[in-house]
């Protein structure tokens, strides 16, 4: 079990090194646009790139004591979490397609049904109230322009 945690930390260290190298590459790309060797948009990426590589290496190669298990929830809970994440990402792509009203109603209904979990008609009532409330606050009061989508809703 503890092996998993060590691996996770080491993976983090490796990711740090990769990010550090990406920063160094960007610094090299920006170097020709400098004002002087130490003044330009390359300076901080270079400095931070080096620091990130060093810190990543420290995490990757240092022996760590007493790691703890990283428990993930059991399958039913995990599927609620993953389902909610999927719904939220779907929402981001549904808004421009279906418009604010319809997409918010659909996704909030799905969330109440899934997380609640409430019966479908209860979820529908909650979803209608939530959609209307958010619309009143953001669209009517704050005058935020929301996408109207294909159905002009």
């Amino acid at each position, binding site marked *: 079990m503890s092996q998993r*945690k060590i691996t996770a*930390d080491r993976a*983090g*260290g490796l990711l*740090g090194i990769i*990010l550090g190298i990406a*920063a160094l590459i960007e610094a090299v790309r*920006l170097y020709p*646009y*400098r*004002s*002087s*060797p*130490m*003044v*330009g*948009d390359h*300076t*901080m*990426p270079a400095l*931070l790139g080096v*620091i*990130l590589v060093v*810190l*990543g290496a*420290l*995490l990757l190669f*240092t022996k760590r004591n007493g790691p*703890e298990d*990283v428990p*993930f*929830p059991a399958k039913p*809970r995990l599927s*609620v*979490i993953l389902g*909610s*994440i999927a719904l*939220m*990402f779907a*929402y*981001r792509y549904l*808004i421009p397609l279906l418009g604010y009203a319809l997409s*918010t109603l659909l*996704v*909030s209904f799905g*969330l*109440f049904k899934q*997380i*609640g*979990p*409430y019966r479908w008609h209860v979820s529908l009532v*909650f979803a209608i109230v*939530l959609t209307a409330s*958010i619309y009143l606050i*953001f669209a009517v*009061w*704050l005058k*935020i*322009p929301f*996408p109207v989508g294909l159905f002009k809703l």
Partner: protein
Amino acid sequence: METFELLLSGFMQAMTPQNLLMAGIGALVGTFVGVLPGLGPTSAIAILLPLTTVLEPTQAIIMMAGIYYGAMYGGSTTAILLNIPGEVSSVPTCLDGYPLAKKGRGGPALGVAAIASFAAGTLGVIGLVFFAPFLADQALKFGPPEYFALMLLALTVMINLAGNSIVKALIMGVFGYLLSMVGIGPSSGMPRFAYGSNDFTGGFEMISIIIGLFAVTEVLKGIEEKRTAVSFGNIGSIYPSMADLRKSVKPMFQGGLVGFLLGLLPGCSAAVSTFLAYDLQKKTSKHPDQFGKGAMEGVAAPEAANNATSSAGFIPLFALGIPASPPLAVLLAGLMIYGLAPGPVLFEQNPKFVWTVIASMFIGNLMLLVLNLPLVGIWARLTRVPYGILAPVILMLSTIGAYTVRNSLFDVSVALVFGVLGYLLHKYRWPVAPLILCFILGPMLEQSFIQSMAMSAGNPLIFFKRPLSLSIIVLSVALLFLSLNLMRRTKQRVRQETGQQAEIA
């Protein structure tokens, strides 16, 4: 003398009906979200930040400061009634607050907590009136090297937000700096870390990242824990007896003083001051054996310390531009959205704004007391709202909140990606607070560093040659050791009390 004139004019401004309304709404909304499971002060301010864009900067900041105070107080309600400390800083309040609630004296405990918060918050604001202009006066002598040294001082904050590993905290901090650099380079005007994407060229919006890492992540954690509504017994009268108040006077002032002095140190977490205040109170008490069994002093001291630290945190924030905690970092982000640069020049350039906000803090503290005491019963009932309703509401508000800042769907994607990332980081115990802090301070750090290099023809010794910048660097190192020491002690205490390893942030 000038300070008092400015404060007086601040009061005149703060007492306008609209500003009073904002302070009141802020205190109420803050307490509301503080009581609800699933939204802490940081995510509450982040989600509500877009809502405040219709307000003037002063009103918006007054409201957000109210939310901050209110949320801190809301956390005490759940600590006392349900033994659920929303933040590590509320753990000491649980120790005596919950036993009191079990004896049917939850009401007086909440009352004492409210009065202690008010007394200490006011003490903190009085300190702010005296200390902040002094710091700001000194800071007028600042040039780019001093500003850079100041940013280094802010980095000591990261040690306090480090969680269980300093290396991980530093990696997260550097990652935050890198994220802040995505967009157009300030010197050359060339896209940086954009990789040909128009969205990346526009840079990341800090509110989206904050909403993702705090609000969305918190909901995912809540779903995992399958949070449920909790009920509790009778809380009794909310007004403490004279005996309760007499017992609480000394702890309030002692705790308030400890909290205020520690809150002055940039980056001192409220958890450090609440534990210190509780321990100090226990040591100096005539009845130390009563502590942990329902001593009113055990509620008053940490609550006073908590609120005093929160108020004192505004001093390094306003005077130096250094946020001491994640909620203050979001407030800093809010100030920046309104084009206000916190730091030494804020007092010079926008005295009206600063003094109105300071004056409104006095009023906000009074409102918290006036509103919270009679409303304690309602707040307590709010803890019964089912998580199945709260979670979808928070998720939808977070998404819309992220969208409204720039009317951008890219920002929604960023909030969701960082929400998932935040959940994984939480699972693998990578602290997110350093990422946010460094993301916010990143542009200032880069600007001051590049200007210093330009001034010195690329010689980094410039930071050590100027007395003021050298002094700040020395202070940073001293604070670093002090922070490490205090954090080690606090973690030991949290482990003693809760049996768990603490992630103090």
